[in-house]
Each structure stands twice: as structure tokens, then as C-alpha cells.
């Protein structure tokens, strides 16, 4: 029996009348003051139509649905989305080649640790999430109730995801911070 539905609906007239129609005896003993007020006015002279409506019942989403939503939010936070909204950096930087005068794109904002262009943030965030998913795939691969071919493909995908994510992330950091690990 539910005891935790915070959304307590005002007993709307249809359901009230349905209850009254279905259980005439119980209607006598209803504690609901709204029901009694509504029974008096306007429903003593108005006749509500017979409808078959149900209150929409909401159920809590499953754990894995929530997890995928959270993964999406994590991707946005860790790729510096809030930084992008507030500081509004360009999507990609540009520098002029001193010799030829051509404009070359610069992907990584140089000079500071706490600064980024939008695209570099998104790609790094994607790498982080990829690494996380790789570890999740590894765990799924060890689940006993699957066919062996699926387990093998999950484990290969998981291992390659982790390796790619780690290598790319280290590469990004090395490009961004020239003196990294020296």
C-alpha cells in the first residue's frame, strides 16, 4: 500500500463519483471533507458524465535508466560545459602563421591549466566517458548468464575502450601542458 506518494491529488470529481458509484455504502463513511462539499455543490444538481479515466500513475524509473542519465550529466560536467556557458570561449582557436599569413586552427588553449575551447572540452569528456564505459563492459563480460561469444566481444570492446581512452587522454594532456611529467 503506498505511503510515500508525495503528490497527493485533490480528489477530483470523477474519481470521487466513481468511488461513490462503486461503493455506495462506503460513501456514507467517507472522511474526505472535499468530497462532502462537492457532493453538495455543484453535484447535487449537476450530473457528471460517465467516463473511464484513470489517474496517471507514475513509477520510479529503473536503476539503469537513472545511471544512463547520470552518465550523460557527467559527460557534460566533465567536458567543462559550465565553463563554456559562462566564459563563452570560441569553439576552436586560431592563430596566424607568421610566414605564410594563413590562419591555422588551434585545438588546445595554450598557457593555462584552467582554460579550454569548446571542442577540446567535449572530446576529452568523451574520452573519460569511454574509459568508464570500458570498465562497465568488462564487468558485463564477466556476467555468467550470457553466451560466450557476447562475453568475448564485450571484453574485447571493454579492453580496447579503456586502452584508447587512456592513451588519448594522456596525449591530450601532453599537448595541453607542454611540461607534463618532466
Amino acid at each position: 500500500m503506498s505511503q510515500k506518494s508525495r503528490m497527493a491529488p485533490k480528489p477530483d470529481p470523477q474519481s470521487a463519483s466513481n468511488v461513490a458509484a462503486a461503493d455506495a455504502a462506503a460513501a456514507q463513511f467517507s472522511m474526505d471533507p472535499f468530497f462532502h462539499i462537492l457532493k453538495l455543490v455543484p453535484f447535487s444538481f449537476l450530473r457528471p458524465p460517465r467516463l473511464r479515466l484513470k489517474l496517471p500513475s507514475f513509477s520510479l524509473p529503473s536503476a539503469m535508466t537513472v545511471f544512463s542519465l547520470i552518465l550523460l550529466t557527467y559527460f557534460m560536467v566533465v567536458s567543462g560545459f559550465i565553463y563554456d556557458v559562462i566564459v563563452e570561449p570560441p569553439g576552436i582557436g586560431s592563430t596566424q602563421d607568421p610566414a605564410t599569413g594563413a590562419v591555422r586552427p588551434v585545438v588546445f588553449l595554450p598557457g593555462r591549466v584552467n582554460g579550454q575551447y569548446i571542442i577540446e572540452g567535449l572530446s576529452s569528456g568523451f574520452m573519460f566517458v569511454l574509459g568508464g564505459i570500458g570498465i562497465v563492459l568488462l564487468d558485463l563480460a564477466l556476467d555468467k548468464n550470457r553466451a560466450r561469444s557476447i562475453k568475448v566481444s564485450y571484453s574485447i570492446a571493454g579492453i580496447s575502450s579503456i586502452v584508447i581512452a587512456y592513451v588519448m587522454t594522456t596525449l591530450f594532456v601532453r599537448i595541453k601542458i607542454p611540461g607534463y611529467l618532466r
Partner: protein
Amino acid sequence: MAAVANMPVSDLLKSFKLKTKQQELLIRVSILCLVYILAFITRLFSVLRYESMIHEFDPYFNYRTTLYLTQNGFYDFWNWFDYESWYPLGRIVGGTLYPGLMVTAALIYRILHFLRFAVHIREVCVLTAPFFASNTTLVAYFFGKEIWDTGAGLVAAILIAVCPGYISRSVAGSYDNEGVAIFALLFTFYLFVKAVNTGSLAWSLASAFGYFYMVSAWGGYVFIINLIPLYVLVLLITGRYSMRLYVAYNCMYVLGMLLAMQIRFVGFQHVQSGEHMAAMGVFFLMQVFYFLDWVKHMLSDTKLFQAFLRITVTCAVTVGTIALGLGMLSGYISPWTGRFYSLLDPTYAKDHIPIIASVSEHQPTAWSSFMFDFHILLFLFPAGLYFCFKRLSDATIFIVMYGLTSMYFAGVMVRLILVATPAVCLISAIAVSATVKNLTVLLRSKNKGVQTGSTKGSGSSKASSKALLDQSQPFQKNGAIALLFGAFYLLSKYATHCTWVTSEAYSSPSIVLAARGAHGSRVIFDDYREAYFWLRQNTPPDAKVMSWWDYGYQITAMGNRTVIVDNNTWNNTHIATVGRAMSSYEDEAIEIMRSLDVDYVLVVFGGVTGYSSDDINKFLWMVRIGGGVFPVIKEPDYLVNGEYRVDKGAAPKMLNCLMYKLCYYRFGEMLTEYGKPPGYDRARGVEIGNKDIKLEHLEEAFTTSNWIVRIYKVKPPNNRW
């Protein structure tokens, strides 16, 4: 003879052979001891490189107050009115600080003196933060054990011992509230989760006292008093209401609130401030839940109960909303303060509160800051969340909520990566522990499979399946071993990264600057301390020094002189007055300085050394803050086409304002770099515009050896004739 000699040895060895449980305990205790020591020594880089001194700006105020506390006792400290800062306003120190840190350091000092170790209070202050970091690793172990199992606890302790996100604010010398507060935060959370898991009153009381320690230590306690009600709400929504939760939350909230009111700085905020209303709302909601549960228990009629439920919940929500509305309208419940409101709406500070927006630590976070501070924990965090969702319980729901909320806030403000670090470490530890457990189960299952296959009969199907099993098992075993080595490799890379970051980025004292000389040798600039010591020795004791608010704490602590504004930034108008003085022409500025009784002016200048955090680079913030209160200061006057310049093409107001004159006085004749004209500013990379500067009302008193700090004396007014 040899046999007799050998026998006692083997008996000796046999007596040392431990049972498995004891072996495990020995391994765990030794790991924790090593981690404890590691957390302490990894934070000692700056002490070994420079000397045992306090870093940055804020810690100097904390050090000064701790010194006062040890010299004058607790009651004088609690009732201290400091007339040496914010001249002529003064500052009520007792009512405007969080005393937890100072009291803790003073307590450690007294204990050491009781044991006859005559250490100076400065050494205690410098090493307080690493000591509490080591204690945090222990708390992380117990917390991990509570959430998952002992393996996760051990990994959590190891991860948090070296995580750069935490080290950045708890390095030796960084004597700031966060060093103690993170320990208090994690401790309070651990005690609360333990209380929810056990439902025991003792643990709930302990968590209330932990919360009291946190309130006394840091303003970030608002995070606890909002996260815990949010957590309780989530538990209620997911149908995990239980008597344990009721006992834990009620006890912690009521007692914690009463204890928190003992801190004068916090005062009655728990019942008056909008930031604390969530906790009160959830408190009343819990009572409603308990009441409904009791009524359900008494009633036998379900339909009646449903009706009653609807009425009660409607009434409760209505009454709560009306009460909240009345409170906010009448002004009794104050709205969210700017500092915390800017966390929910990050664009707020940029438009409305320039002081908050100007601090570099308050900028939003870019991906590289995350990577710098977390490294592979960023991969392990989503994986750990997955494992937590696989095995949902009251404790894992808590850690998931803590991790998500703190990561969001870490994204809004760089400084808050510190608050997210324990959550990220714990969740990553869950991922590591679960993965390693899966892999080792694979390693061990092979032996069992072979054994069962050999003990059973050799039917044909069994033989073929056994053959199949035998084919895949060595492959799986090798794969598991390879993956374990891979995990070990990643974790060792993490340790290397953390040590490198600690050594290179987070161990600089900020008051002593270091640079690489021409041949790679390290050059030390100790100009700040040189200037403060000069102030201390060569100025009258009641001299008043005007500088930008960054340096206020250091001037009062080391120079021992009265300052006009300091880092507390509690009075925006006073700071704006100083900003206005710095941005005006010398004639207007001298009026303001005379009205404030200023005797000396101190500026920081990086043009000779290339130091980029000097007052010229901060100048626009002085203009903005001054202009926010005095509209006579307009920012476009100092810019040329929206660009901030100090060379020949700079705005005339910029070239003649007080800050420009004080920084570049006599700089026009200075040769700073080979091949460049005199007056070449190395920090901005340009030759300055106005080289011939004459000061009318000020005279130069002292310039440090590398021209970083420059002190000017305000000349007394001319004799009238």
C-alpha cells in the same frame, strides 16, 4: 646435534605461522600504516625545498589568530576586537571567523608542550594540514568499509592519500580551514551513514558532534546541511523509509542545529537563513511520515487510510508552503547569499558581484583542471557509479548523491574540486575493488572447475565439455592476469602523476617565488618577506598601510602594521574606496588617502621579473569594484578600443593614475632585458608609455631587490604660509 638445533627453529617458525584471518589483519594494518605515512610525507615538498613557513594569503590571518589564541587564552580570543585591520572600522574577530582550525592547532600545541616537546606554534600550524590529511585517509578506509567492503576501503585510503585535488589545499604550510574541514566533512558523513545503517542513537549523536566540528571549521558546512536532507528525501522517495533513518536524521538535525548555534559567526542562521530551510523542511516531512506510519499501524481499514493519507499530505504541504512564504515575505528568513546563490546560478556572480567573480579560484572548471586533479579517477568514477547502481543500498545511495552533487559544484567553481575529491576517491575505489574482485574470482574459478571436472565421472559429454572448459580456462586465466597487470599499471601511472603534480604545481608557497635561471638553476625571489620585514622595522608602530586587499593579511601578520582593507572583504564600500584611490589621479587620490590617515602605500609590480600576478594585471578589478560604488570611475576610461594597454597607445587616464605612477616610478630608466629599450615591462611584454613620472604627494620609501614590492610614503601636507 644439528637436528636438535634445527628443531627449536622450526618450532619457532611454526609458532609464528599465522592463521589466514590474522594474516589478513596484518596486511590491512600495515597497508593503513604505510598509507598514513605516505599521505603525510607527500605533502612536505615545500618544507624541504624552501623552509617551514606559512603559504598564500589567508593562512597568515589564521596563523595570527592562532598566535593570539595561544598567547592570550580562549576568552580573549573569542572576544577579540582587532583594531589593526580595516582601519578605521576594525574587525570583530571573534564573531567573524570559524574557530575550529585555530582551536585544533592550539590544542595540538598544548598537548605537545604538555609532553615537553617545546615546538613553536608556527611549526604546529604548518604541519596541521598534512596531519589531518593522514587522518582523512583512515576515515576514508572506514567509510569505504561501510559502503562496500574492506578492499574498497583500503583502495579509497590509498587514492585519497595522494589525490592532487585534496593535496592542493592541504599541503604543508597551507594553514587554511579546508585542511581540517575535509577531515570533518568526511568524518561527519561517515558517522551519519553508519547511523543510518545501524539506527543506533550513539552513532547519531556522534554524527551531530561531527557536524558541530565541521560548522566550527568551515563555511562549507552548508553543503552538509543541504546534502543530508536531500539524501533523506531521495530515500523517502525510493521507498526506503525506516526507523533507522528516522532516528539518525532527527537526532543529527536537532542536536547538530543546537550545537551549530554556539558558533557566533553562524548564529541563528539555522532557523533564519534560506540556505538551511531545506533541512528544516525535511525534518517536518519526516515527522509527517512517522505520523502516517503510526496511523496506518493503528487503522485496519485501507480505504480510510488512503483518504486520510491524501488529506494529511495536502495539509502538510500547504502549511509548509504558507509558513515558508510568510517567513520569506516578512524577511525573517533571509534569501540565499550571493556566494552560495552563484553556485546554483553560475552567471549571477559575473553580472552582479565583481568581488566574487574576480577571484581566480571561483572560475568554472575546464576539462584540464579535472584531469590535473583526478587523472584516472575520471574513468573510474562512472564505472564506480555503475557498480553502486548494481548494488543499491542506503549507503551506496548516499555516496552516489554526494559524488554527483559535489561533481556538479566542482564544475561550477574550481575551488570546489576539493569537496568532490573524497566522493570521487570513494566511488573510484568501489570500481577498482569490484573489478579486481571479478578478475581474481576468474583466476580462482579455474582451479575449482578443473577439480570438479576431474572428480566427476568421465562421460563423453562431460569429457567434451571438460575439454572445452580446459581450452578456454587457460586463456581466461592469462587474460585475467594480463588485466590485473593492466590495472596495476594504471594505478602506478596515477601515483606518478599525483607526485609530479604535487611537486610541480601545488607546492609553491606563493609568498616566495621561484624561477629557472639562465642555466637551469633555481632563482628564489623572497621580495614579499623582505618588504614586510622592512615595514616592520622601519615604520612607526602606528603607521597605516594602504594596499590592495590581497596583501592585507600578510601585512598585518608579518609587517605588524595596520591595514586599510584585507582579504576578509566584508566591506565592499571600503574596498571600493581603496580601488577608487588607486585609479584616480594623484591629486584626487591624496584626498582619499588623507581622509583614511594613510601613511604608506604598498604596490606589487612584476615588470622587472616577469611576475604576472601583480597589481597592474589586477588593476581592472580595482576599477570595476571602485566603479561599482563610485560611478565617477568608469572602466572604458582606462581601455583603448576595449583593450587594456600600458604602452604608448594606452588611455591617458591609465597613464596618469596613481597605480600606474606608483608601479612605474623610475622604471623608465631601467634596463630589464637584453636587446630591449629601457622601461620594457616583462610581465606585459611592452615598453611602457609614460616614462617620466613625477610624484607630488608621495615619495618612494622602499623598493625590494627585484622591484616586486614597492612602498611609498605619503608626504605630510605643506606648511601653509
